[in-house]
Every structure is written in structure tokens, then in C-alpha cells.
């Protein structure tokens, strides 16, 4: 029990410690790919520290929603990330909440953020919130269909059990899993505001979605929201890693060495995923906002198809 709690604590710290690193790594690789030097990998940490030291400037029209949102968003995202097995399964929290709870946590974080975007009453906040909700209304069902596919396959909605099942021998080659992977990657790209859907590095008003919502934030509020978005990227990478590349995750109570190996495997997975994300982002152009619904509709369709095809495959 105490060991479980320790592992859970480690997990929460690992998630928090590596999230800015992953973001910095992706930025660095992207810069190198287009022939620039790019900021150092540790730059996100410095940005967060600098923002934490700066004073908060609030708009006159800002209500308590605007002030409470950064804390709620960060807390929800962090708890969500703590539920995903990164280097070890059998986490203490995973008995309390499953994959559907993760979707719900992320959904409530997004809801708060959209409210805060509307709260100050600027036109940018409104446009950002409305676009974010348009994206969410398609991305969330797609994510849920992926969750249903995995749960139907593994017989459980808990990520630990799913990872354990997928590590086992009786998975085989399943078309449902392939479709679910593609759908999950598309959802992850849309949810993390990565390039074909949104550009994380721009403040061009015609295209921005996520940045438009948080335009009014400053100081420690902005730091928390930035940190939450880093953690969210790490969360999606961890979910994809633990479900579709479950190798090396230590089972519960395997001892210290297994945990260290698990951590090494996890870091390798992050490195590969960050590289793939950077290559993907540099090789594709951003799509128009009104085409995003087609993109996410395709993700939803893949998720539904994965669930349907699950019923035709052999039932073992």
C-alpha cells in the first residue's frame, strides 16, 4: 500500500518534471528540421519560472471564474496525467478512476478554459472559446469511441488493465487497434492544438484557437495554463505509449530495478514520439478552421469503425 502510494507520487512528479522537457524537445527538433538553431531544450522551464515571478495583470471586467480557471485547469490536467501508467502499472489512483474519467477531467478543464475565454468579454476570447468548443464537440466523442474499443478488447476501462492485456500474448493483430491508434493520434493532435488544426507558436488572429482563449492571462496564471498544456501533451503521448507500445512498463510490485527500466523505456518512448510529432508538424500545412470538422469527423468515423469491427473479429 505504501509502496503503491510512493509509485503514485513518483508518477505525479515524473509527469510534472518531464512535461516541459517534452515541449522544449519538440520545439528544438522542429527548429532543427527547418534549419534554425532554436531555443535550448530547457527553455520552457525558464519561461515558466519567469512567468511565476511576474505580477498578474487582471482586466477590470474579470470575475472569479477568470481567476480560478488556471488552478482548476492545471489540477484537472495533472490528475488526469497521474492516472496514466507511464513507467509502472498498478497505480494507487487507477482504482479510483478509469480512462473515461480521464476524458471527463480533460473535458472539464476545457470547459473552464472556454468559460474564462468568454469571461473578460474580448472578441478574441469569444472566438477562441467558440472554436475550441467546435473542436471539442467532435474530438471528445472520437476519444470516447477509442476508449470503448480498447475497453471492449481488454474487458476493462482501467488503463492499467488495458496495458497489461495488450502486453499479453493473446492480442494478435487487430484491425480495430490500428483504427483506434489512428483515431487517437488525430484526437491528440487536435486536442493539443498542434499544427494541422492549430498552430501553437502563432498569435495570428485568423488562425489561433487555444492562444486566443488565453490571450488575457499573465503572470502565474499564464504559467499554470502553459504548464497544463505541456502536461496535456505528455498525457496524450503517455496514453498512446502505454496502450499501443506497452513494452517495458513495470507491473505492480516488481521491484526497484523494474521501475528504473520502465522509466528508461518511458523516456525512449517520449523521445520517439516527440521526434515523430516534430517531423509530422514540419511536413504538413495548417488546415483552414472550417476543415477541422472534416478532420475530426474522420477521427470519429475511425473510432466508430474500430468499435464496430471489434464485434466481427474473433471473440477471445
Amino acid at each position: 500500500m505504501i509502496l503503491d502510494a510512493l509509485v503514485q507520487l513518483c508518477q505525479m512528479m515524473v509527469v510534472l518534471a518531464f512535461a516541459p522537457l517534452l515541449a522544449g524537445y519538440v520545439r528544438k527538433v522542429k527548429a532543427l528540421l527547418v534549419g534554425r538553431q532554436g531555443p535550448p531544450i530547457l527553455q520552457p522551464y525558464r519561461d515558466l519560472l519567469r512567468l511565476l515571478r511576474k505580477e498578474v495583470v487582471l482586466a477590470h471586467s474579470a470575475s472569479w471564474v477568470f481567476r480560478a480557471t488556471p488552478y482548476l485547469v492545471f489540477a484537472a490536467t495533472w490528475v488526469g496525467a497521474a492516472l496514466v501508467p507511464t513507467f509502472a502499472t498498478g497505480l494507487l489512483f487507477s482504482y479510483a478512476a478509469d480512462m473515461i474519467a480521464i476524458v471527463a477531467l480533460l473535458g472539464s478543464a476545457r470547459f473552464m478554459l472556454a468559460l474564462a475565454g468568454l469571461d473578460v468579454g474580448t472578441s478574441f476570447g469569444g472566438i477562441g472559446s467558440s472554436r475550441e468548443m467546435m473542436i471539442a464537440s467532435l474530438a471528445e466523442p472520437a476519444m470516447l469511441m477509442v476508449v470503448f474499443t480498447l475497453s471492449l478488447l481488454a474487458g476493462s476501462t482501467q488503463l492499467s488493465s488495458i496495458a497489461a492485456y495488450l502486453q499479453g500474448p493473446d492480442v494478435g493483430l487487430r484491425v480495430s487497434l490500428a483504427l483506434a491508434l489512428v483515431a487517437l493520434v488525430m484526437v491528440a493532435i487536435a486536442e493539443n492544438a498542434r499544427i494541422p488544426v492549430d498552430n501553437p507558436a502563432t498569435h495570428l488572429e485568423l488562425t489561433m484557437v487555444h492562444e486566443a482563449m488565453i490571450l488575457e492571462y499573465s503572470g502565474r496564471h499564464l504559467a499554470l495554463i502553459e504548464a497544463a498544456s505541456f502536461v496535456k501533451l505528455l498525457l496524450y503521448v503517455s496514453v498512446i505509449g502505454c496502450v499501443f507500445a506497452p513494452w517495458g512498463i513495470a507491473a505492480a510490485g516488481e521491484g526497484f530495478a523494474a521501475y528504473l527500466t520502465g522509466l528508461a523505456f518511458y523516456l525512449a518512448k517520449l523521445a520517439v514520439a516527440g521526434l515523430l510529432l516534430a517531423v509530422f508538424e514540419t511536413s504538413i500545412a495548417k488546415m483552414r478552421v472550417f476543415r477541422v470538422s472534416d478532420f475530426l469527423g474522420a477521427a470519429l468515423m475511425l473510432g466508430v469503425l474500430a468499435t464496430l469491427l471489434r464485434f466481427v473479429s474473433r471473440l477471445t
Partner: protein
Amino acid sequence: MIDPLALDIAHLFAGGLVLVSVMLLYQDRMTGLINTFALHALVVSLSVAWQAFIQHAPHLYITAAIALVIKAVVIPFALHRMVVRLGIHRTIEPVVSIGLTMLAAIGLIALSIMVMLPITAQAGTLAREDLSFALSVILLGLLMMISRRNAVSQVIGFMSIENGLILAATGAKGMPLVVEISVAFSILVALIVIGIFLFRIRERFETVDIHLLHEHRGEQP
């Protein structure tokens, strides 16, 4: 009993065929549509070849080869030339929006799975899967034919139906080779006839939107 891995690979190809059928409905450019159709034929030939391997039925290899040569190479090539000469390689005119077509497609897949699984409860696993997937592919091809105005898209829908029929036939322990060859060649002849027909339509109406035909017959559009 067949090895589970072999079954999984067969399932992968058959499921992939359904996916490519849905991708056909998603395309919004004629060039992309024809390329996706070539992929459709490629997947069906892979699926047939794999079934030939696990069913130990060598004549199915010929079916696969015919599908590969005629439908994945010759017909797409001919269609590419045709749409460039007709000057319609950029446009597709769907009757309803792509999103609605997708919803209908999902409904049809669910329908065919729900219909086929109870009916074929006695059959082997492979035949069950293939029949339900084949019915989905056929229904999606029909959907493609009714949801597009452009005659070339309708031709492609028609040919994807034929791919679905091949999948159904191979799942049910293969079909006689003579039938298969005659079907393949009748498809080719159909393509030629439809091609000539398309040019005739365009000469007369200066478009290949078949809605004009309805008006010409005096029907309400």
C-alpha cells in the same frame, strides 16, 4: 481450425477494405478518388491472395492477379486519362455533404454486421467475417453511386461493389475461375462502354452531371 494469426491477417485485410471503401466516400477530388480506388483494388487483391494461401486454393491467386492488374493498374490509368480529357479532375459533386454521407456509411456498416452475424452463425469464422465485410463494401458502393452526381464517381462506386462481391466469393470457399475471369472482363467491357457513354453525355450536355439527364427526361431534379 485455422491459426489465429492467419485469421487476424485475413481480418486485417477485409477490415482494411471496408476502411478504404469509407475513404472513397471521403475523397473530394477526382484524382484522389481514382487513386483511392486503385488502393481499394490493391487491398482486395492482397486479401484474396492471403485467403488463397490459408485456404490452400491456388486458383484464387489468379483471381488476385486479375484484380491487381485490371483494377489496380489498368482501370485507374484509363480513368485518369478520361477525367483529364473531360476536364473534371478537380471536382466532385456530392448530393449531400460529406459528413452526412459518412454517417450513412457508419449506419450501413453497422447494419450489415448486425444482419450478417446472426445469419451466418453456423459458418466458419473466416466466412462470417468476410460475408459481413463484403456486404458493407457492397452497401458502401451503392451509397457512393447514389450520393454522387458525377458519372465517373458512380462508375467507381460500381467497381467497388464488384470488389465486395469478390471478397464475398473468396470467403465462401472460392468461386469457379471461369466465373471470376468472365466477371473481370465484363467489368473491363463495362468500363469501356461507360467511357464511351460519358463522352457522349458530355458532347450532348457539356457536363457529366447526370442530373441534367433527369431533367431531359422530364423528371423533377
